[in-house]
């Protein structure tokens, strides 16, 4: 099947509307959140319309159907990322997943492999989204463990030259992003995973910006935990995934406690159900899980490799066109080697907020600011950037609109 973004756009009802007095919507902010195809909207609506009941609880037909849909969604997600079914945990977002693991580690008693204390170390990178930085800062503060990090080079790549002194015998966990939401950089994982495992540390991968855009197989990657958000992969808001290797999930203490996550309960104590239930306290986000399953099936039908190839093509095109604009500086890799379709840039004296506002007046949606990666912005020497981020429904026409918009902004603000 040939890849046709114009046909794909027709699956997304939002592209039927116009922006700012009749302009065509040029949506270049999928790094923040993706648009939703009708099948995802239908899956969520149908759950409420036809099957709504609390999963795992009622002795009635609706409860059975709801449970089938919810557990079926788990299976779809597991298939999408090459995981075992019981390793896939539904959370509300990647942010919650990262808080789940960091709080769960903080709950680990002495003797548990996840227990942290003064003298232990947590490793992150300078290019983390705040969601994969602050939870670790907080865990370090609570446990007395130290926090260290891989630096970022001026080209926007991880500096692995000091890998052996960044990841040491003290390191218990290495948390990093698969693809930077600002730079677009896809991080090389092999050496980091090898070094982390050599010292007995676990790897937590923030796959928010990779799972939607390229084939990710958790077993092939060799990481220990992984998370992503449903809403960036064509799914609904309010659902995220936390994946962990089953033997690790068995030892990791729970984060949220309450209904549905227990095995037995007395007035003074409780024991836990095995994963995934141990990490899914309360009535879960069933309709959103159904929507996420529809999303990953939609992508699988198109083929994630095709999505990736399309994005590489557009990224290459945009990078080339941008390099022809004199005052434009790309913040991140300037070629498509190990790089995704998130392109951040500065443009002469025009502040990103003003550029973004101008582009908006042309119907072009971009993100401006520090993109929840303030330390990275500081490191790259830019207070803020404008970011265009691509997805399967973007076209060369969208890229041309952006380039024209940037050039017109120069005329507008240069007046």
């Amino acid at each position, binding site marked *: 099947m040939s890849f046709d973004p114009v046909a794909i756009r027709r699956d997304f009802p939002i592209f039927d509307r116009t922006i700012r*007095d009749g302009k065509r919507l040029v949506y270049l902010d999928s790094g923040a959140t993706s648009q939703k195809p009708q099948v995802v909207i239908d899956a969520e609506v149908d759950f409420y319309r036809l099957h709504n009941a609390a999963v795992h609880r009622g002795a009635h037909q609706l409860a059975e159907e709801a449970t089938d849909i919810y557990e079926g969604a788990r299976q779809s997600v597991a298939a999408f990322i090459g995981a075992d079914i019981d390793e896939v945990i539904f959370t509300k977002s990647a942010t919650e997943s990262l808080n789940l693991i960091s709080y769960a580690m903080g709950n680990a008693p002495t003797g548990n492999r996840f227990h942290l204390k003064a003298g232990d170390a947590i490793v992150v990178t300078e290019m983390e989204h705040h969601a994969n930085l602050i939870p670790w800062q907080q865990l370090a503060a609570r446990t007395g463990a130290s926090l260290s990090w891989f630096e970022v080079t001026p080209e926007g790549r991880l500096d692995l030259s000091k890998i052996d002194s960044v990841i040491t015998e003290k390191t218990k966990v290495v948390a990093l992003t698969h693809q930077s939401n600002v730079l677009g950089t896809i991080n090389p994982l092999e050496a980091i995973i090898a070094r982390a495992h050599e010292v007995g540390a676990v790897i937590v991968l923030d796959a928010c910006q990779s799972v939607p855009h390229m084939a990710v197989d958790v077993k092939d990657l060799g990481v220990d935990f992984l998370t992503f958000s449903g809403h960036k992969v064509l799914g609904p808001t309010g659902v995220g995934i936390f994946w962990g290797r089953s033997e690790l999930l068995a030892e990791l203490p729970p984060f949220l406690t309450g209904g549905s996550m227990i095995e037995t309960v007395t007035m003074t104590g409780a024991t836990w159900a095995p994963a995934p239930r141990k990490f899914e306290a309360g009535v879960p986000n069933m309709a959103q899980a159904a929507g996420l399953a529809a999303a990953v099936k939609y992508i699988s039908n198109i083929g994630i490799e095709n999505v990736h190839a399309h994005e590489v093509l557009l990224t290459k095109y945009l990078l080339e066109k941008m390099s022809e604009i004199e005052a434009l500086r790309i913040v991140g890799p300037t070629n498509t080697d190990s790089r995704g379709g998130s392109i951040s840039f500065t443009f002469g004296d025009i502040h*990103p907020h003003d550029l973004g*506002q101008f582009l908006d*007046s042309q119907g072009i949606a971009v993100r401006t*600011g520090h993109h929840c990666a*303030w330390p990275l912005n500081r490191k790259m020497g830019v207070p803020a950037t404008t970011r265009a981020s691509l997805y399967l429904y973007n076209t060369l026409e969208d890229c041309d609109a952006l380039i024209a918009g940037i050039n017109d902004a120069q005329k507008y603000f240069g007046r």
Partner: protein
Amino acid sequence: MQLDNLYQEVILDHYKNPQNKELASDNDAQVHHVNPSCGDEVTLGVKLDGEKIASINWDGVGCSISQASTSIMTDLLIGKTLTEASEISEKFLHLMQSKGSEEGDADALEDAVALAGVSKYPARIKCALLGWMAFKDASVQAHSAKEN
């Protein structure tokens, strides 16, 4: 273009030639305010002469709206009394919250009425208010520093 309501000539002028944008070393109070959603920053100092505002000086990075608004505010409020300044600030705040339904009191707000268009863009109101909020904070601190 509707955008022209937002980016009036006066605003771009102040952005290119910001007024009082050099921090003094002898302020009665100095504050640092940021807009955490976009990273815009302003450091702003206030010097009082009794009830009168002798100086407002500042430094900062940010978009044209935040920078121009701060610049316009300093021009407007230097030389006023604290009471006058707070009345003007209230009027400006009200204008920013007007969702495009008001033009602003040109007698009181002078150049600052050029920012009226901002009130139609909810995401930019914080930009326009950054310097004004910093001034409010600094003037209260400067006032109480003088009293003690």
